[in-house]
C-alpha cells in the first residue's frame, strides 16, 4: 500500500482547501463548508462541520437527522449509508466510511482520475457504544483533524474515567455529580458507558439534552431511564448523576441542584489548568477525538503519500510528520473551533 515510491505526480488539483471548506472543483461540491453552498458533503453533525442552508446536503441518515433537529429543515437531504459509493458530477466518487466520532460520523473517501483522498472530519479510534468504529482505509492524501494534536494528550481508558465518576457518586450520597458534556455525542456516549459499567439508576438531564438523547434512541442507541431535572426537586436529585451542556456548569441553572460536584467529560481535562479554569472539581478525560498516539498511529496505518491537516494543533502534528519523513501541510481553514470536547 506504500505509495511513496510510485512516480505519481502530486497533482490533486481537483481538490482544494479554500478558507471556507474543501472544494471539489469537477463536482462543484464542498465538504463541511462554513457557509451555505449549492451542494455539500457533511462528515458529521457538530456545528463547526454541519451548517444549514445548503441546496443539497449529502450525509449519513443519522447526520441528516441531527441537522434536521438543529436547523428544522430537511430540504435537499440526500442520505448515504456507510460503505455506499455515490457518483458526483465531473467523475468524482464519494464513499462514506465510519469515523467513530459520534452517531452518524463519517470519513469521506473521494476518488477521481485514479487518485484517492480521505477527509476524516473528526474521528477517534476508541470503542464507542454509540457509533461504529473508525475504519482504516488506504489513500493517497489523508486530510486529518488535529484537535488533540499535542503529545501531552493521551486519553486514558474510558472505563477508568467512568469509575472515577461512580466513585464520586458513592462517596457523596448527599450531593449530586453534575457532568458537563457536549450535547451531541459526548453526553450520549457517557450515558451509554455508564450503563455498560452497571449504573442503571435514572440519569437526569438538562433540558437542552433531551431531544438529542431521544434521537440517539430512535437510531437504536439504548440510554436507559432518563429524566429531566426540571421535573424534580432538589431532594430527588441527591445521589444522582446530572448531565448538562458545558456552558451550564457554572450557570445560575446549577443552583437548583443539591451541592453539585462539578465534573466535566472532555479531552481537555487532561490539562489541570483547563479544568481549573472551568471550576471543575472532577475532571473526566473522555474525548470523542483521536489523542496524539491515535493521530500518529492512524497516519502510519493509513500510510498516505501526503497528510493534510485541517484543524486543531496542526503545528505539532506537522512537526511529527517532518520528523518521520512524511509529506504534510496544514490547511488554513476558518470556522472550525475547539469543541467543548
Amino acid at each position, binding site marked *: 500500500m506504500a505509495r511513496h515510491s510510485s512516480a505519481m505526480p502530486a497533482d490533486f488539483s481537483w481538490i482544494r482547501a479554500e478558507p471556507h471548506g474543501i472544494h471539489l472543483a469537477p463536482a462543484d461540491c464542498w465538504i463541511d463548508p462554513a457557509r451555505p453552498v449549492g451542494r455539500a458533503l457533511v462528515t458529521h453533525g457538530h456545528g463547526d462541520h454541519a451548517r444549514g442552508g445548503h441546496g443539497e446536503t449529502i450525509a449519513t441518515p443519522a447526520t441528516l437527522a441531527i441537522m434536521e433537529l438543529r436547523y428544522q429543515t430537511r430540504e435537499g437531504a440526500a442520505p448515504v449509508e456507510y460503505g455506499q459509493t455515490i457518483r458526483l458530477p465531473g467523475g468524482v466518487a464519494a464513499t462514506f466510511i465510519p469515523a467513530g466520532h459520534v452517531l452518524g460520523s463519517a470519513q469521506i473517501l473521494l476518488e477521481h482520475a485514479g487518485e484517492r483522498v480521505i477527509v476524516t472530519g473528526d474521528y477517534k479510534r476508541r470503542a464507542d457504544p454509540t457509533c461504529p468504529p473508525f475504519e482504516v482505509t488506504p489513500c493517497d492524501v489523508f486530510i486529518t483533524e488535529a484537535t488533540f494534536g499535542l*503529545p*501531552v494528550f493521551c486519553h486514558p481508558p474510558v472505563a477508568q474515567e467512568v469509575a472515577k465518576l461512580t466513585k464520586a457518586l458513592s462517596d457523596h450520597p448527599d450531593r449530586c455529580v453534575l457532568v458537563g458534556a457536549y450535547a451531541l455525542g459526548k453526553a450520549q456516549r457517557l450515558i451509554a458507558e455508564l450503563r455498560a459499567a452497571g449504573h442503571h439508576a435514572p440519569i437526569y438531564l438538562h433540558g437542552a439534552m433531551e431531544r438529542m438523547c431521544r434521537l440517539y434512541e430512535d437510531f437504536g442507541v439504548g440510554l436507559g431511564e432518563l429524566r429531566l431535572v426540571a421535573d424534580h426537586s432538589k431532594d430527588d436529585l441527591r445521589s444522582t448523576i446530572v448531565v448538562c451542556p458545558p456552558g451550564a456548569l*457554572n450557570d445560575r441553572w446549577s*443552583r437548583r441542584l443539591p451541592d453539585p460536584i462539578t465534573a466535566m467529560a472532555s479531552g481537555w481535562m487532561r*490539562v*489541570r*489548568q483547563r479544568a481549573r479554569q472551568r471550576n471543575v472539581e472532577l*475532571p473526566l478525560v473522555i474525548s470523542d477525538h483521536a489523542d496524539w498516539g491515535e493521530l500518529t498511529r492512524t497516519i502510519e496505518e493509513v500510510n498516505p503519500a501526503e497528510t493534510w491537516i485541517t484543524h486543531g494543533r496542526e*503545528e505539532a502534528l506537522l512537526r*511529527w510528520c517532518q520528523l518521520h519523513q512524511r509529506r504534510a501541510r496544514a490547511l488554513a481553514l476558518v470556522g472550525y473551533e475547539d469543541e467543548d470536547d
Partner: protein
Amino acid sequence: MEEFAALVDALVYTRSRNEKLRLIAEYLRTTPDPDRGWALAAMTDGLSFPAVKASTIRNLMMERVDPVLWVLSRDFVGDTAETASLLWPEPQADVTPPPSVTEAVDALASMTRVSVMAELPKLLDRLDATGRYALIKLSTGGMRIGVSARLAKTAFAQAFGVAVEDVEEYWHGLQPPYAPLFAWAADGAPPPDSGDVPLFRPFMLAHPLDDVVVDLEDYVAEWKWDGIRVQLVHAGGETRLYSRTGDDISGSFPEMAEALTFPAVLDGELLVRGSHQGGAAGGAASFNALQQRLGRKTVSARMLSEYPAFVRLYDVLIIEGEDLRELPWHARRARLEALMPRLPSERFDISAVVEARHFEHLAEIRSGARDEAIEGLMLKRRDSPYVAGRRTGLWYKWKRDPLLVDCVLMYAQRGNGKRSSFYSDYTFGCWDGDPDTGAELLPVGKAYFGFTDEELKQIDRYVRNHTVNRFGPVRETDRSLVFEVAFDSVHASKRHKSGLAMRFPRISRIRWDKPAEEADRVDALRALIRD
C-alpha cells in the same frame, strides 16, 4: 507515593476549604510514618532539594522529547512540571513498584547537580503521570497547590483532634518528618520538648467590639497601632521575630533580632520610626513606611537608617524560663513595665494605657484620635490570662470608623467555591475629572465582601443585565452602579494607574439610588493619603 499523588491531584481541583481540610486530614490519619511527615513538610514548604531545579526538568525532557514538540506542549499546558509529567515516556520494560514518599525524599536528598540527571529519571520511571506530577512539584519546591502552611497545620489538628495553637507552638522546634509531633498528636505521647529553641507561641487575638459596651472597671484600653503584630523570642542564645502567621521575619529586621539579648517571649507591634506623626509620643510612621521593609531577604544600611524599626510592646509571655501566660493581664503588665529598663529604648517602647473615666469618654477619645499610626483601640480584660486564639469576652478590638468613598462598579468577576456561579469580586473606580466634561473612570480598588447574600444576588443580577463586555470569567459593566466603599487608609502606589492603593476596601452600601456621575473623584481619594 500514589496516595500522596492522589492527594495532590485532589487538592488541585478542590476549591472548598473544608473539603481541602478533610482530604489532608484523611491522608494524615491513614498514612504511615514517616511518609505522612514528609508529605506534611512538602505542603508547608519545609523541603528543599538544591540539586533539582526547573532547568533540571527541562534538560531531562530535552534528552527525551523533540525540542519543538516540548515547546509547543509547554506553551499549551502552561506549567513545566505538568508538561513534563504528561510527556515523560512510559518505560518499556517492567519496572520496580512506585517509591514511597520517604524513599523518594531520601533519593532526592542524596542527589547532586551531576547525579540528578541519572537518578531522577529512575524515580520518574516508576510513577504514572499523576505520580510524576507530584514528584516534580515536591522536588522543585513550592507545591503551589492552593494549600497554605496554616491550612495544612489546621488539617493536622483536625486529623488528630488537637488544638491548632498547640500544633503551631510545637511545630517550630521540629524538623521534617516531625516524628515527635505525630507521636504526640496521634499516639498520645508527651508533647515535643521545646528546650532551648526560640519557638513561636500562638498569639492571643481579639474579637471586634461591634455592639458590646464594656465596663472600664473590668477592661483596660490600649491603642491599637497600625504596624504588624510580632512576637520576639530569645532562647538558646538566638533571637527570632515572628509574624502573626508564625513566619520567621528576623532576616528582614536584623536590628530587632539584635535588640533582645536575654531569654524572653514578647508580644508587640512592629513599627518604623517616622517624623511626621506621633510626635513626642514616640513617632511611628504609617504602614506604608513599614511596607518598605517587609519581605526583604537582605537589608541595606540605607534601609536601616531611613526606616529604622522598633517594637511597641503589648505583653510579655515568658521571662527567663518563667511562663507568665496563666497570670492575669495586670500582673503581666507590671512585669512588662519592670522589664523596660533592660531593653534598649531606641528599639522598644511600651504601648501606653489609655486613661478614660468611662466608656463614653473612651468613645470620645477614640473618635478624636487622628494619628495615622493608630488603627483604633484594644480593650483587654484586666484579669484575663494570655490564651492562644480568639476567646470570647477577653480581648476586643475597637477600630476607628473607616473612611468612605463612593465608587462606580466597573468590572465583576466570578467568585470561587460556593460563589462560583455569582459575580462576587468587584473592581470599582472614581472619576479622573468632571464626568460632565468627559472625565473617565480610573480603577481604584477591588472588594469581594461587605455585602449580604441577598445583596450578592441583587448585584449578580445587575451585573448580568448590564454587561457590555466579557473576558473569560470577567464582565465589564456599563458603569452605572455606585458602591459606597469603606476602607482603613489609602496610600500612594506606583503599581496602580490611579496612583493610589486602598487598605482593606469593602462594600459598605450599595447606592442603587445614586447616579454614577455623582460618585467621587480620584482627587478626593488622593487628599486622604497620609504617607
